[in-house]
């Protein structure tokens, strides 16, 4: 019997490497003999690539909204004695959403009910009238009618967000128009000018001119009356000087808080690159993890494990072979996916070397994790279920962004996801695909540490189970 204390690096010795090579050929033959597995290995990445490709090659979808505009043509929002410029309601709203014109409220409701549109927006005929009443002594609240079909909570949230954003933009636009008009009238009070009321032109003197006239009259006013005149002059001067700053103030009231967005993190990859990286990493996860875990469990199921490790092949060489199998199949499947995605999005093939590095190390990480799972299981079915149950939640948790959950929970998620190869593999894949992305070194180092840790865990599990 041969001594069993060799490390994975020992398994690279020519004799052991030959044994590992024969086992790899055996596993590939078995894989080829399983038509369902072989078809899945080819069909799965292509299907994922097609889905991702179609999703990212279309423009970001605008929500479809049924639109019924009952505002009479030519109606304008009044501003003092005049009217604000035409708002262009249809044009403005239909820039934000995909408008589906309807002829009646009933038709709008039907489209919402049948799911043809996300929501329906009905602008009533008296909307402008009510808007104009805001500047009178009898203001009425302008209202628009929104019809929604909140068939599930996610859709309800999406509809609420879209409609709120749409109305916020409309309110902001109207407020700005009113603020501009208000500013114009303030200028009239300060600087003077003509003002139209009921078709009559009225001349406004203006505070500036008033102060000047009063200053000029002052020497002719008796000394006993001058203090009163001085008070009027001081008022006119103060009002003129301070109302100068009122116009920008009113303008700011329309949008009191301005947003100054600055990115403090590393530059984020374009959305399509991130989507491709996620798809590639998910494919790599499931294919490699399930394949390696299942392949190792199969050695037990077919009673060949004891025969192999009873002196023919060191456990470290068997482990190295399984990791090699995972890397080889992972490379093939992921490159197939990237090749298919190329039909939809142009990828930077000059970074091919980095792709290979990211896929190989990511694949090795998943293979080592799969070997650890496979070494601890006795049959293929249970290990497949276990691999799926472990990898799916970890993959989903890895996609949770900071700030989306509480700080404490996010710290827990960060630690959990750092213990599994998905997150570093995704980061490595993103860096490899994105020329402007962050460096690939840190995720590769993270993967290397995980590979060593999982390989050690797998060796321990193999030894423990061999002795049982």
């Amino acid at each position: 019997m041969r001594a069993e204390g060799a490390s994975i690096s020992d398994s690279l010795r020519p004799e052991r490497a030959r044994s590992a090579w024969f086992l790899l050929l055996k596993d590939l033959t078995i894989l080829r003999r399983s038509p369902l597995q072989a078809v899945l290995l080819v069909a799965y990445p292509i299907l994922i690539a097609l889905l991702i490709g179609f999703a990212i090659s279309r423009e970001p979808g605008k929500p479809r909204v049924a639109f019924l505009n009952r505002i009479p043509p030519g109606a304008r929002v009044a501003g003092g004695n005049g009217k604000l410029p035409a708002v262009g309601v249809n044009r403005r709203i239909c820039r934000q959403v995909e408008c589906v014109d309807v002829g009646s409220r009933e038709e709008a409701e039907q489209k919402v009910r049948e799911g043809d549109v996300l929501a329906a927006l009905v602008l009533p005929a008296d909307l402008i009238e009510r808007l104009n009443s805001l500047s009178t002594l009898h203001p009425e609240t302008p209202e628009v009618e929104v019809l929604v079909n909140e068939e599930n909570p996610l859709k309800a949230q999406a509809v609420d967000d879209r409609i709120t954003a749409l109305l916020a933009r409309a309110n902001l636009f109207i407020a700005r128009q009113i603020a501009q008009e208000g500013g114009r009238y303030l200028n009239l009070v300060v600087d003077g000018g003509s003002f139209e009321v009921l078709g009559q032109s009225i001349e406004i003197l203006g505070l500036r001119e008033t102060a000047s006239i009063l200053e000029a009259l002052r020497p002719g006013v008796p000394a006993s009356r001058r203090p009163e005149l001085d008070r009027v002059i001081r008022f006119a001067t103060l009002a003129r000087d301070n109302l100068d700053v009122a116009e920008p103030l009113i303008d700011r009231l329309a949008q009191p808080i301005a947003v100054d967005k600055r990115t403090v993190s590393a530059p984020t990859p374009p959305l399509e690159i991130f989507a491709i990286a996620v798809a590639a990493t998910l494919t790599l996860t499931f294919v490699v993890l399930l394949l390696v875990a299942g392949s190792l469990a199969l050695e037990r199921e077919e009673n060949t494990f004891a025969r192999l490790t009873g002196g023919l092949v060191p456990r470290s060489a068997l482990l190295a072979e399984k990791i090699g199998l995972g890397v080889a199949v992972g490379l093939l499947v992921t490159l197939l996916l990237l090749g298919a995605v190329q039909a939809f999005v142009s990828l930077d093939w000059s970074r091919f070397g980095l792709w290979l590095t990211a896929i190989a190390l990511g694949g090795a990480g998943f293979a080592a994790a799969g070997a650890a799972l496979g070494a601890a299981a006795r049959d293929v079915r249970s290990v497949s279920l276990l691999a799926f149950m472990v990898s799916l939640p970890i993959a989903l948790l890895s996609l949770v962004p900071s700030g989306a959950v509480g700080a404490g929970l996010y710290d827990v998620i960060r630690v959990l996801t750092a213990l599994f190869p998905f997150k570093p593999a995704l980061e490595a894949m993103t860096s490899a695909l994105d020329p402007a992305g962050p460096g690939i070194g840190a995720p590769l180092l993270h993967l290397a540490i995980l590979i060593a840790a999982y390989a050690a865990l797998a060796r321990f599990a193999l030894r423990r189970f061999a002795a049982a």
Partner: protein
Amino acid sequence: MQARGLVKRYGNREALRGVDFAAQPGELVAVIGPNGAGKTTLLSILAGTLRADAGTVESPNGHVGWVPQQAGLYRRLTVEENLLLFARLEKRPDPRRAVEEMLGLTGLGERRGDLVARLSGGNQQRINLAIGLLARPAVLLLDEPSVGLDPRQRARLWEFIAGLAVQGTSVVFSTHDIQEAERYGQRLLVLADGEGLFDGSAEELRETVRGEAPEGAEGDFETALLAYLRHRGH
């Protein structure tokens, strides 16, 4: 092959309690005993697939061939592919020639291209045995080799094993079939509850039974063995 003081524990249970064992070249040794006696554990330790908690095993120069009870074969490889893989792993200088030799020996040459999954249990056991023989071992360990075989296949198997022993291979086999042990085992090792109770020929066992449990000595060999085990408290 020699082993001394073998101990194996599974948790609190002792599967082997200081068992000694020896096999000479060309000898056929049968390991018998009731279920849970420790037969498979002993053979697995001798084969090196299981580590003993205490005791030593000395193997002769040359490989120890191991034929587990459940065939250790790849069901989705053909007969030939299985043999070729293990011949390569055994580092046979000419693996293809070794495969031809084994196909001839097992009489499965015509089914070389068949997937193992499509073979009968008996034929799978023949391939299982052939793999154990690929390295031309000095010692061949067989765990219940005749289980699942029909009488004709069984007879062929024992004829083949006897031929190996004649050529100088030490053959150690475990069995539940007492008649088989009496017929083919030149020496019997009786285990019960992990303890080695008897080591000698079938005749010597009968003599021992006559001395220790005369009520069972006049029956067949199985009755005699049962009386002996009962007398020893098992």
